[in-house]
C-alpha cells in the first residue's frame, strides 16, 4: 500500500505501476505528456517534493509519503504567471514540451528567484524542444522570474491584432497550462487499443500469419490481417505503394511494415497479444543503399523497379558555360538521414460515426488522411471524417498516414472507439525521414566570381515507400541552383527505393541537401577568385526583375540582397564567420493546382474561421486571426479559430511547402472581403448563420513548361545566415536574416527562425539516424538533438519587402529557416581550421560525438 499526494489530493493505492500512466489515467492530469515513456524527452516532468522528476521512470512505490505537483495543482497566481510569460515571450509552438518546461521552470524559480540565463538553460537541460530552439523558452522563464520578483502582478496587454503585431498566440495558454487536447489526451467510453505487429526482416516473404494464440488471449478483441481490409490494401500520399498490412504471400519492404493489427482492451494486453502473433517468413536479400538498388540484378523493393523518380532540370547550356569559365570547381557531397523527432509521437483515435468512421488525428493534412482512409476502407470520402487535435510538431514527418488508417480500420471493423499510438521507438522506425543524398556539383564562374554555369547530379535514398520522395527530389533539383542570377543550369537527380525506412518530407524538402552543396561551392570559388564569401554571394544575388536559373522572373518582394546587407558587418567583423544563402518556395508550385480555401461563418454573433489547413505548431491559427482582423476590422474577441477538420472546414491542402500563411492566408482574406460587403449594410447579429467562402488558387507553370519565363512558384523566401565560432571552435552565435515579405507576427517569425536554426545545427553537427542492415539503431536519446544548455544565441533579423500582392504580402517561413544553417556552419569551420568538409554531420568539431570503442 502506497500513500502519497497528487496536487494536494490524497491517494492510497494497492498495486504498483509507473507514475506517468497513473497521473494521466487515474488522476487525469493530462498536462503531464507522454513523449517517449523511456526517460529521454522530458515532457513528463512533475515536481516530487519540489524537485523536477521525469514521471515515466519512477513507480508508485517510490512516491510513498511524497507530494506530487503537476500544473493542474498550481496556484492561480502561478498559472497566470506562466501562462502570461510563455505567451508574451513567444515560447510556445507545438506546445508538447511546454508543460514539462513549466514544471522545471517552477522547480528552479521556487529556489532561485533571480537565475541567470545559463542557470535557466541548465535547469531545462533534460527537456527536449524540437520547435523553438529554446531561446524564447528561456526568455519566458526569465520574464516569469522578473514578474515574480516584482510581486507577481500580470501586465494587461492590449493588442489590435492587425498584421505585424507581436500578439500572443491563440493557443499559448491552453498549451502552457496543459489543458489543450492532443489526441493522446482524449478519452472515450469503451475505448480499446490497437497496434501493429511489424516485420521481423527488412525484406522477406510473409508465408503465413497465425493469429490464433493472440486471439485466444483474454482481453483481445480482434487480430486483423490484410485479408480484413475492405478496400485497397495500398495507400500513399501521392503514389499508392504503401501496404496497410503486408498480405500473406507478399514481401515486406522495411522493418516498419505492419503484418497484423491487434486490438485489445488495454495497452498491456495489446503488447502481450502482439507477441503471440506468429508470422513465418522466407527471408530475402535486402537493398540497403541506392547504389545496391541501381544494380541490374538488384532485388526489387517494388515490382515496378527500384527507381522511384528521375528528374532532369536544364536551362541554357551549362556544359559550355562551364567550359568557358575562368574558375571551375567540382566536388562530391553527402548528407544523411534525419529524424524529425517531433515531441508528440503519432497517435490517432478512430470511432464509428453515423455510417462511417471519425478519426481524431495529429495530422499535417486532414483531407489527405480522409482520402487515404476512405480508399483503404472502400468507402466514399464523405463517410470518413477527420478532425485534427493539437499537433505536437510535424516538420514534414506527419504528412503520411502512420496510425490514422489503422485506427480507421479497427474502428470500422470492430465498431468500437480505438486508440492507436506509436511508441517512441516505433515512431523512429516508421514515419518517413529526411532523404540522405549523394551529390556532385561542378560550378564555373568568371574572373569576378560571377556564376556562369552549374552542373550537378543527385542520388537519393527514398527508402521503402514513395511518400513524398518524388517532389522532394524535384525540389532538391530545382533549388540546387541557389538564389542567384545566372542562366546555365543542368541537374540530374534520381531517387531509389531501398529497404531502409522511407524518406519523405522534412522541413526544407530536399533543399537542405542541395543548398549545402551549392553554398560550399561558392565558399570555395570565392577563395579561388580571391574575394570574400560574402562578396561572391552579393555579386550573384538575385534581385527584383532578374531571371532565376529556372527562368522565373522574380518579383519586387525579392530581398536576398537586403538579407546579405543586414549581416555584412557582423560577418566581416569576425575571423571565424561562415555565411550561406538560401531560397525556398512558398506553395506547392510547378503547375500543380494549389488551393487555399476557407469559410468564415457567423455563429452566435462571432465570426468563425474554418479551414482544413493544419496548424502543426507554427502558429497558423494566430496568422489567420490576424488576417481576419486586418481584413474585416473586427475585434479579436469577435473571432473564433476552429481547428482543421473535414466536417465543416474546406480542403486547404497539406501543411507543407511553407504554404499555409500565404495560401490559406489569402483564402481567408478573400472570404473576409466577401464578409465586408455584407457587413457594410448589416450588423454582425443580422448576419447570423451566414457563411463566406474564400478560395485562392496559387497558379503556376509546370516544370519544363514551354514558356520563356515559367512561374514555378508564386513566391520565394530568401535568407542569409552567418555562423560565428569562438576561439575554441564552438558556436558563439548564429545570425539569421530572413526576407519574409511581410511578417504577420514577428514574434512567431523569430520563433520559426530560432527553432529552424537550432534544428539544423543538429543536422550540421550532432544528429545521427544510424542504420545497420536497414535497422535504425538510434533512440530518441541518442539522436543527438541539441539541449537547452548547449545552444548558442540565435539572432533573427527580419527583412520585410513588399511586392507580393496576396496574403498581405506574407511569405511562409516554415522551412527556409533550416536551409542555410549547415553550410554557414561548415563555412565557419573552414575558416577556423582550414578543413573543407563535404559531408554532414561535420567531422572533427567540438560537437562531434566521441566514438565509443566497440
Amino acid at each position, binding site marked *: 500500500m502506497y500513500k502519497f499526494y497528487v496536487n494536494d489530493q490524497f491517494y492510497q493505492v494497492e498495486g504498483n505501476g509507473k507514475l506517468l500512466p497513473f497521473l494521466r489515467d487515474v488522476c487525469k492530469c493530462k498536462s503531464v505528456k507522454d513523449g517517449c515513456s*523511456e526517460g529521454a524527452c522530458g515532457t513528463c516532468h512533475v515536481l516530487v517534493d519540489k*524537485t523536477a522528476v521525469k514521471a515515466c521512470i*519512477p513507480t508508485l*512505490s517510490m512516491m510513498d509519503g*511524497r507530494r506530487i505537483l503537476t500544473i493542474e495543482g498550481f496556484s492561480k497566481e502561478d498559472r497566470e504567471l506562466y501562462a502570461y510569460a510563455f505567451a508574451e515571450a513567444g515560447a510556445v509552438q507545438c506546445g508538447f514540451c511546454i508543460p514539462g518546461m513549466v514544471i522545471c521552470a517552477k522547480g528552479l524559480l521556487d529556489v532561485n528567484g533571480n537565475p541567470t540565463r545559463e542557470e535557466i538553460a541548465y535547469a531545462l537541460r533534460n527537456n527536449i524542444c524540437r520547435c523553438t530552439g529554446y531561446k524564447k523558452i528561456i526568455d519566458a522563464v526569465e520574464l516569469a522570474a522578473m514578474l515574480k520578483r516584482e510581486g507577481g502582478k500580470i501586465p494587461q496587454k492590449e493588442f489590435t491584432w492587425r498584421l505585424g503585431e507581436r500578439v500572443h498566440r491563440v493557443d499559448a495558454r491552453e498549451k502552457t497550462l496543459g489543458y489543450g487536447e492532443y489526441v493522446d489526451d482524449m478519452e472515450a467510453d469503451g475505448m480499446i487499443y490497437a497496434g501493429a505487429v511489424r516485420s521481423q526482416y527488412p525484406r522477406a516473404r510473409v508465408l503465413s500469419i497465425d493469429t490464433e494464440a493472440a486471439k485466444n488471449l483474454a482481453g483481445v478483441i480482434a487480430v486483423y490481417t490484410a485479408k480484413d481490409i475492405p478496400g485497397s490494401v495500398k495507400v500513399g500520399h501521392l503514389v499508392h505503394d504503401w501496404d496497410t498490412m503486408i498480405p500473406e504471400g507478399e514481401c515486406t519492404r522495411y522493418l516498419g511494415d505492419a503484418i497484423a493489427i491487434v486490438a485489445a482492451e488495454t495497452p498491456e494486453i495489446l503488447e502481450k497479444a502482439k507477441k503471440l502473433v506468429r508470422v513465418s517468413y522466407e527471408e530475402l536479400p535486402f537493398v540497403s543503399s541506392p547504389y545496391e538498388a541501381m544494380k541490374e540484378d538488384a532485388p526489387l523493393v517494388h515490382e515496378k523497379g527500384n527507381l522511384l523518380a528521375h528528374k532532369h532540370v536544364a536551362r541554357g547550356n551549362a556544359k559550355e558555360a562551364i567550359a568557358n569559365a575562368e574558375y571551375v570547381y567540382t566536388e562530391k557531397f553527402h548528407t544523411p538521414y534525419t529524424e524529425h523527432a517531433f515531441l508528440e509521437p503519432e497517435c490517432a483515435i478512430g470511432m464509428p460515426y453515423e455510417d462511417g468512421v471519425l478519426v481524431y488525428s495529429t495530422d499535417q493534412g486532414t483531407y489527405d488522411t480522409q482520402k487515404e482512409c476512405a480508399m483503404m476502407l472502400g468507402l466514399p470520402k464523405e463517410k470518413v471524417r477527420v478532425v485534427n487535435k493539437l499537433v505536437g510538431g510535424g516538420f514534414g514527418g506527419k504528412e503520411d498516414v502512420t496510425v490514422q488508417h489503422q485506427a480507421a480500420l479497427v474502428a470500422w471493423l470492430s465498431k468500437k472507439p480505438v486508440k492507436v499510438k506509436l511508441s517512441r521507438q516505433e515512431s523512429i522506425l516508421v514515419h518517413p525521414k529526411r532523404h540522405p543524398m549523394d551529390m556532385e556539383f561542378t560550378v564555373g564562374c568568371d574572373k569576378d566570381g560571377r556564376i556562369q554555369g552549374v552542373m550537378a547530379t543527385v542520388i537519393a535514398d527514398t527508402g521503402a515507400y514513395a511518400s513524398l520522395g518524388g517532389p522532394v527530389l524535384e525540389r532538391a533539383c530545382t533549388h540546387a541552383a541557389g538564389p542567384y542570377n545566372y542562366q546555365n543550369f543542368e541537374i540530374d537527380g534520381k531517387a531509389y527505393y531501398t529497404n531502409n525506412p522511407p524518406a519523405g518530407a522534412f522541413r526544407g524538402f530536399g533543399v537542405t541537401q542541395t543548398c549545402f552543396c551549392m553554398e560550399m561551392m561558392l565558399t570555395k570559388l570565392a577563395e579561388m577568385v580571391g574575394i570574400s564569401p560574402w562578396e561572391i554571394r552579393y555579386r550573384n544575388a538575385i534581385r527584383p526583375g532578374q531571371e532565376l536559373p529556372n527562368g522565373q522572373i522574380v518579383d519586387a518582394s525579392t530581398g536576398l540582397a537586403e538579407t546579405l546587407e543586414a549581416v555584412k558587418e557582423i560577418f566581416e567583423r569576425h575571423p571565424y564567420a561562415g555565411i550561406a544563402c538560401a531560397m525556398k518556395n512558398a506553395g506547392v508550385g510547378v503547375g500543380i493546382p494549389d488551393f487555399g480555401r476557407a469559410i468564415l461563418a457567423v455563429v452566435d454573433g462571432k465570426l468563425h474561421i474554418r479551414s482544413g489547413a493544419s496548424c502543426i505548431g507554427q502558429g497558423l491559427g494566430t496568422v489567420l486571426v490576424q488576417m481576419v482582423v486586418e481584413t474585416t476590422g473586427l475585434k479579436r474577441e469577435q473571432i473564433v479559430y476552429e481547428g482543421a477538420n473535414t466536417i465543416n472546414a474546406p480542403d486547404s491542402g497539406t501543411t507543407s511547402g511553407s504554404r499555409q500563411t500565404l495560401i490559406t492566408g489569402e483564402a481567408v482574406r478573400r472570404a473576409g472581403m466577401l464578409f465586408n460587403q455584407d457587413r457594410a449594410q448589416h450588423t454582425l447579429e443580422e448576419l447570423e448563420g451566414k457563411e463566406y467562402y474564400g478560395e485562392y488558387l496559387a497558379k503556376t507553370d509546370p516544370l519544363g513548361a514551354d514558356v520563356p519565363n515559367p512561374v514555378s512558384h508564386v513566391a520565394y523566401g530568401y535568407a542569409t545566415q552567418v555562423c560565428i565560432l569562438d576561439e575554441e571552435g564552438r558556436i558563439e552565435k548564429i545570425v539569421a536574416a530572413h526576407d519574409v515579405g511581410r511578417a504577420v507576427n514577428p514574434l512567431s517569425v523569430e520563433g520559426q527562425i530560432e527553432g529552424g536554426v537550432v534544428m539544423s545545427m543538429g543536422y550540421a553537427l550532432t544528429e545521427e539516424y544510424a542504420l545497420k542492415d536497414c535497422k535504425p539503431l538510434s*533512440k*530518441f*536519446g541518442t539522436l543527438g538533438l541539441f539541449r537547452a*544548455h548547449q545552444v548558442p544565441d540565435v539572432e533573427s533579423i527580419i527583412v520585410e519587402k513588399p511586392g507580393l500582392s496576396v496574403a498581405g504580402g506574407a511569405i511562409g517561413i516554415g522551412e527556409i529557416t533550416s536551409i542555410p544553417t549547415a553550410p554557414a556552419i561548415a563555412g565557419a569551420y573552414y575558416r577556423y581550421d582550414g578543413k573543407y568538409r563535404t559531408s554532414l554531420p561535420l567531422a572533427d568539431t567540438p560537437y562531434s560525438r566521441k566514438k565509443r570503442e566497440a
Partner: protein
Amino acid sequence: MGKQNNQRKQCAYVACAGGERDHTCRYGCTGCASCVEVCKKQAIKINTYGVAEVDPGKCVGCRLCEKACPQGIIHMRSAAEVFFVRCSNREKGAEARKACEASCIACGLCEKNCPSEAARVEDGCARIWEETCLSCGNCVVSCPRGVIYDARGIIRKETR
C-alpha cells in the same frame, strides 16, 4: 557543453557503498578515514557500513578528499547531476558478487536501459557520463544490485 558544466558547483562522492557483511573487495573503501581528516567542512564521515560517505549539503567541491583517498575512489560530480555509481569493483559476475553485496557485477543492464548512452560499463564497473545523462533514473531502476544512487533519494531500486 562540457565547458558550462565545469563551471557548475561540484560535489564529491565515494564510489563505494560497502556491504552489510564483511567484504573482501580490494577496490572499495577501506574505512581509513584519510578523507575525513582532510575535509575542512566536516562533509564526510565513515558510515555504519564502515565506508566514507559525503554529505552533499556540506561539500563545497574543494577536492581535498579526492586527492587524499589512497584507493582513488572519491570522484567529483556536478552537484545538480543526481545519479552516481557507488561502487568501484572491477571484477565481473560471480567474482564481484562474492566480494560485496552492493557491488557492480558489470551485467550491463544500466547501459542497456539508458536512453542516451550515458550509463556505460567500463573496465568492469558502471559509470555515468554527465554530458549525455538525461537524469531519468532508468539506470537506478534497472540495476539489480542497487549500485546506482539518486542523490535526492526519489528514484531507487524497487524493494517489493
